[in-house]
């Protein structure tokens, strides 16, 4: 076990610290609120000679991720950071990085997408990219953001898939918390060198990368990417277990909190997980058996673990910090309904779409949702399938 150094850091500072310790070969980025500090701090590490990274200040996020794709194809360990509109501008290149199986890591700070323009947290940016072939990890606090950034490099390079590690904009990114940092020397030691099979710069073994792929082979290449997504959960699990063995903090793919004897549960992602844990404690002090499921790895969707967790209780309130704008509610809600389709036992579900544009969700509000779920347990049905929680005029 290594000694950890205890410091106070914001989510952005913690992600930048992780990047400093990782010392990637290339970082290409364009700043955007609320992720700006991640690369701003990293740029100062470059200027101060604390890292040996080639830093590329690009003219847009589209260019930034394109530069990452080039560098990663050459065999470099590559990272970047963005938010919201920045991720939307990267959208085209996200699919290219996914399809080329490049282990790029994005430190993503979740922020609402325009319009209306807003700089605060919801999950509309990351969830709009859920089908791009990237692994997506939603963190609950600063410590998890730091640890997950380090683990993401290992996962990406083992799986040959790009990874987004997300924090909730301002809530985590700008909130200062106690963080335990790993010793500087230990991070590169744990990660090792990136093993590169094919490099664009290897002139002795030249390759063609990203060639035109028409009716004859496109489907086969996509099928192999789909297969990689089907088999990546054990790779994530192994990295998380190795990290725990080395540094003492263990993260699950899907977190269950006080679920063993719970009658009703809330399913949430990101910082709301932390808020809900306090609500669970308070409810339990009053003898109410409630639990929390926190979806930490959202892509790929942990279907088996999710099925097991959901069917432990009678009622689940599914908290979505984004809407699919499809008249079908939020993303998690739809994924969970799909997971439950073949199950003989099903809990009843209510979707709470909440917190859009950074609207706060309090412990008391989550307690009131738990009270509502307990009432549904008694009646055996929910009042409505999809509710917009905390919006005026409902």
């Amino acid at each position, binding site marked *: 076990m290594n000694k950890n150094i205890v410091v106070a850091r914001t989510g952005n500072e913690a992600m930048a610290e992780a990047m400093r310790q990782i010392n990637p070969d290339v970082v290409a980025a364009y700043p955007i609120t609320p992720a700006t500090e991640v690369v701003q701090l990293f740029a100062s590490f470059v200027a101060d000679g604390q890292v040996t990274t080639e830093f590329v200040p690009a003219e847009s996020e589209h260019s930034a991720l394109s530069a990452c794709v080039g560098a990663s194809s050459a065999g470099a360990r590559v990272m970047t950071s963005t938010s919201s509109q920045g991720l939307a501008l990267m959208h085209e290149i996200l699919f290219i990085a996914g*399809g*080329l*199986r*490049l282990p790029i890591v994005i430190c993503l700070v979740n922020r609402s997408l325009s319009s209306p323009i807003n700089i605060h947290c919801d999950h509309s940016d990351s969830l709009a990219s859920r089908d791009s072939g990237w692994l997506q990890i939603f963190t609950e606090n600063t410590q998890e953001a730091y640890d997950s950034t380090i683990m993401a490099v290992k996962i990406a390079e083992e799986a*040959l898939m790009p990874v987004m590690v997300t924090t909730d904009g301002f809530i985590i990114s700008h909130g200062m918390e106690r963080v335990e940092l790993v010793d500087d020397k230990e991070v590169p030691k744990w990660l090792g060198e990136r093993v590169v*099979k*094919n490099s664009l710069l290897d002139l002795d073994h*030249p*390759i*063609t*990368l*990203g*060639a035109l*792929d028409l009716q*004859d*082979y496109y*489907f*086969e*290449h996509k*099928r*192999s990417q789909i*297969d*990689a997504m089907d088999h990546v959960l054990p790779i994530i699990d192994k990295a998380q277990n190795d990290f725990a063995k080395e540094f003492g903090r263990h993260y699950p793919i899907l977190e269950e909190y006080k679920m063993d004897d719970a009658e009703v549960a809330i399913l949430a992602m990101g910082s709301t997980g932390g808020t809900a844990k306090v609500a669970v404690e308070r409810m339990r002090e009053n003898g109410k058996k409630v639990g929390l499921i926190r979806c930490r790895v959202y892509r790929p969707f942990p279907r088996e673990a999710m099925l097991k967790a959901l069917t432990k209780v009678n009622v689940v309130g599914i908290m979505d910090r984004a809407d699919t704008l499809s008249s079908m509610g939020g993303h998690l809600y739809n994924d969970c309904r799909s997971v439950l389709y073949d199950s003989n036992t099903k809990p009843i579900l209510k979707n709470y779409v909440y917190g859009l544009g950074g609207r706060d969700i309090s412990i008391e509000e989550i307690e009131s949702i738990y009270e509502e779920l307990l009432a549904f347990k008694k009646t055996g049905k929910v009042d409505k399938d999809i509710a917009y929680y905390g919006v005026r005029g409902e």
Partner: protein
Amino acid sequence: MKKEKKGWKDLPIGLVLEAGTSQEFETGDWRSDKPVWDSKKCTHCMICWIYCPDSAIIVKDGKVQGIDYRYCKGCGICAEECPPKVKAITMVREEK
């Protein structure tokens, strides 16, 4: 030159192909008009060699030797660019 197409499990990860695979792609199949080169008229100015988009002008020791019909798409650029007073290349309809 017909190759068995691979199934998805046999493909290398990440759209990686060997280098120089365009050699296997015989674009000569596309041709409807064929350039015919006249060795007696040719001045070996190399203009056709510079312009050919498919590197289909065969050159040896600085002299044009002919046209590589495996790759020549029959675009006619060589015939168009061959100097007007030379006109060593003429386009002929492909007929079989």
